[in-house]
């Protein structure tokens, strides 16, 4: 059974189909790199997987259950374009709040552990607005990993991060993978993504045109997949 699967998902914005029957399956423990140009529908697909938006047609399932189920959402960690933390709460308060909303059993311990992991323990009572850009990003990463999600959905996670945050994120992702978590991430930083990815999916104009295991060709030459699909006209 797939950890998370999109089955023939269509999404219309008005009359415009941003997704045209996208089908994607991520087996448990996989790390899927979702590639595609701007406007291909990566963000739209990830938002639908994260239940932030409803598919117009098709269905999303998480471990075989409908993703509309509220309990299922607790298994998902989502990191979007925004950092998703409150500027007027301290780092610790932010994590406590999200722990409570995510139904984490021992919120305080989880928050402490998450701060430890991203190296923010010393500034746990500092307000997010006082943090530097990199610290804010690490806090966002801590927030997304707080409830040890079984499925991680990351929308261009490496794009706006600074070096230290990238290192932290890499480590956390590897750690999560070794614990059996499933990851779907969209990305432009192909080289970084390929190191982690076990699977690669290419989204073009709202359709998954390629989906399969990552090959060594891709690792050596990040542009390989794009070129392959540009050559043949659709």
């Amino acid at each position, binding site marked *: 059974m797939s950890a998370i699967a999109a089955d023939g998902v269509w999404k219309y914005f008005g009359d415009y189909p941003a997704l045209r029957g996208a089908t994607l399956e991520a087996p448990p423990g996989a790390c899927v790199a979702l590639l595609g140009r701007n406007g291909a529908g990566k963000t739209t697909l990830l*938002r639908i997987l994260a239940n932030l938006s*409803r598919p117009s047609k098709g269905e999303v399932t998480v471990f075989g259950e409908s993703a509309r189920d509220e309990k299922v959402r607790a298994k998902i960690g989502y990191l*979007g374009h*925004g*950092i998703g933390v409150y*500027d007027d709460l301290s780092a610790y308060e932010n994590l406590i709040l*999200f722990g409570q*909303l995510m139904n984490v059993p021992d919120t305080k311990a989880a928050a402490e552990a998450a701060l430890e992991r991203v190296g923010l323990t010393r500034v746990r009572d500092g307000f997010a607005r006082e943090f530097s850009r990199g610290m804010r990003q690490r806090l966002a990463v801590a927030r997304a990993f707080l409830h040890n999600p079984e499925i991680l959905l990351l929308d261009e996670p490496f794009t706006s991060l600074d070096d230290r945050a990238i290192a932290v994120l890499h480590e956390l992702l590897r750690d999560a993978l070794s614990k059996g978590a499933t990851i779907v991430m969209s990305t432009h930083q192909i080289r970084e993504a390929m190191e982690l990815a076990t699977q690669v999916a290419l989204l073009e104009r709202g359709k998954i045109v390629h989906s399969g295991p990552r090959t060594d060709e891709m690792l050596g030459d990040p542009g390989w997949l794009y070129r392959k699909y540009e050559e043949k006209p659709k």
Partner: protein
Amino acid sequence: MKQGLLSALFIARKDLRTEFRTKEALNASVSFALVVLVLFSFAFDLGRDEFYDISGGLLWLVYVFAGALIVNRSFIREVPNDCLDVLIASPMPAWSLFLGKVIASFVLLMIVELVSLPVYGLLNNIHWVDSFWPHLGLMILATWGITITGVAFSAVTVNVRLRELMLPVLHYPMLIPLLIGAMQISTALLKGDGGDLSADLRLVVVFDAMFSALSLYLIEFILVG
């Protein structure tokens, strides 16, 4: 259900905590209410008895103007850093996010109202102490109506251009039945002549019940696109 209510309380506490730290909406709203109160005393140069006849109406005008500033902030608070996405992706249902925001706005607006009521009485020589408790009951009922519709429209206008202007345009016409009822009851309470207020009270209660049910039911469509 229980979890949903609990999550609503978490959201309300978060909103109140951030608001008390920055006091953005609260300061603006209280000072706005005070300015309006002072302006009223210039706008209406009336004798004491005549002023009593319009006292309830003016009071609710102050409250509803102040309320616009409070509910406007409600969902806009979530816009920086895309926090709304994280809340919607969490396991809590959309209605409990909405309910939490309504509770927070309700508390804030009640604070503004309770601050401006004595000032209003002082400036305009209105006796409000005798009828305080029934008046408080009315304020709770009518403020709930103002905040639940206001926060619903705040959710609606969060992605709209010119949202600060759009919100009152949508919200005020909708509030008219509620305000008519509340103004009549307030005037009667402040004047101290009982009369039959049951029809007005029923209006306020029906408004609350109907829009609470409608918005809690429909909010899912708005928040999860």
